[in-house]
């Protein structure tokens, strides 16, 4: 079955086609073709009729991102009591990929509701290190889920920590989870992820020490120059605070619609370069091999080699893409059934 057929089925609301297309995008295959055929201004058709709201949940290892995600799903579904009923929700859950074997144990959906519900879609994503706690091509996958018509898209980052701020560019709302006993108040003075948070959750509020952490965070935020993000004490175990968190979360402005998308453009350019580079490398492109050789032998400095590489990859436009297309077989360029 070709991606063209998949797209037709996708437009008819076929869940398996969505799943398969997500896999293609996750691997960076046919991304331009698929994304180019999506509705540029999708509206949530499965519930609210508004554009999708994309929310990231980030925070350290074991702070309860998956458990809270699970509770938020329950709260927005018709059976839930915590919010506007019947929002459809998709989850992209990132878990780390082994730097040694490339394998991954993806254990996030284990903590989320498992009974089949047509308004809930959960995909686990293996995430290489050094990517800012996000799986590759996450922005593409978000666009696909939007086009399918989900009202709420929850992105769970890898259990991360200080400095994983890149998620802010991709989503409307960043929720940072903290937990009791995470360190003294100096930890909150450090720059990084606390600065990009739109909402702060002191999670595991049923444990002792939650009030203390909340007080520390609040006092630190009070010193800041910008409007302090709201702080919630939440417990996925008892359900305390979930409804309040959800209300605020759904009332946040859709930041992605407001920004000028310049960052999107940069990201697209970066993705294009990455794709061209890996193609050239896989194809053992002679020019690239030569360049790498000269750099490894020390004939070029790293900076010289990098700008040489940019020039080389820029030249590959057109022919490179077209060659790749025909190499993919007859189904790759010609729409078929």
């Amino acid at each position: 079955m070709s991606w063209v057929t998949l797209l037709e089925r996708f437009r008819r609301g076929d869940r398996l086609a969505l799943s398969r297309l997500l896999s293609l995008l996750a691997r960076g295959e046919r991304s331009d073709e698929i994304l180019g055929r999506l509705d540029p201004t999708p509206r949530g058709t499965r519930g609210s009729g508004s554009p999708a709201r994309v929310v990231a949940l980030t925070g350290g290892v074991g702070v309860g991102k998956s458990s809270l995600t699970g509770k938020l799903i329950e709260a927005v579904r018709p059976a839930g009591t915590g919010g506007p009923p019947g929002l459809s929700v998709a989850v992209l859950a990132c878990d780390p990929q082994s730097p040694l074997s490339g394998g991954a144990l993806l254990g996030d959906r284990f903590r989320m509701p498992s009974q089949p519900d047509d308004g809930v879609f959960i995909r686990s994503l293996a995430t290489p290190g050094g990517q800012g706690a996000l799986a590759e091509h996450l922005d593409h996958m978000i666009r696909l889920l939007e086009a399918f018509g989900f009202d709420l898209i929850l992105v769970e980052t890898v259990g991360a920590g200080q400095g994983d701020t890149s998620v802010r560019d991709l989503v409307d709302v960043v929720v940072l989870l903290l937990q009791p006993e995470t360190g003294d108040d100096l930890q909150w003075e450090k720059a990084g992820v606390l600065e990009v948070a739109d909402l702060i959750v002191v999670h595991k509020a049923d444990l002792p020490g939650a009030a203390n952490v909340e007080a520390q965070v609040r006092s630190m935020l009070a010193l800041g120059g910008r409007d302090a993000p709201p702080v919630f004490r939440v417990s996925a175990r008892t359900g305390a605070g979930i409804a309040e968190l959800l209300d605020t979360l759904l009332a946040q402005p859709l930041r992605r619609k407001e920004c000028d998308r310049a960052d999107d453009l940069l990201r697209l350019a970066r993705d294009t370069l990455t794709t061209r580079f890996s193609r050239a490398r896989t194809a053992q492109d002679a020019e690239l091999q030569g360049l790498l050789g000269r750099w490894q032998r020390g004939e070029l400095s790293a900076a010289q080699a990098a700008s040489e590489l940019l020039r080389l990859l820029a030249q590959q436009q057109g022919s490179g893409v077209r060659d790749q297309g025909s190499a993919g077989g007859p189904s790759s360029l010609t729409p078929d059934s």
Partner: protein
Amino acid sequence: MPARFPGTTTDSHSRRPMTVPRPPRVVLAKVGLDGHDRGIKVVARALRDAGMEVIYAGLWQTPEAVVRAVADEDADWVGLSLLSGAHMTLVPRVLQLLRDAGLDHVGVLVGGIIPEDDVPQLLALGVARVFGPGTPLPEIVAFLNQHPLGGDAERCLG
């Protein structure tokens, strides 16, 4: 259903596309009321270390939940672990639901305590392999690596 996984693996391997770009994605789940998850966690770890993407769906899953996880995760394989004795009820149910959902291409493995007499029946129903206690982990890894795309060579590779 004819056996899709003959004893020697070279046949089925050779008709697979040579462009397989990735290791298998495998959903592992405990179906039914059975709280023994040590074995499935050991298998999960072994597959992870062999470079596979393992989605651990965990304990007390219904057949419906397992099939939904397989669909949403676009998995190539699903591994079911049962130590409860309910395998002749639950495994056929999973197989039927996979077919109903249009997921015939997904391969099914079974592990746990399965009496020898039941193994041929499970294989006849469409289970690819039954890996009981004492199976060397490399044997499971090798089997999956020889059949990375589950039961189907016709999957869309883009």
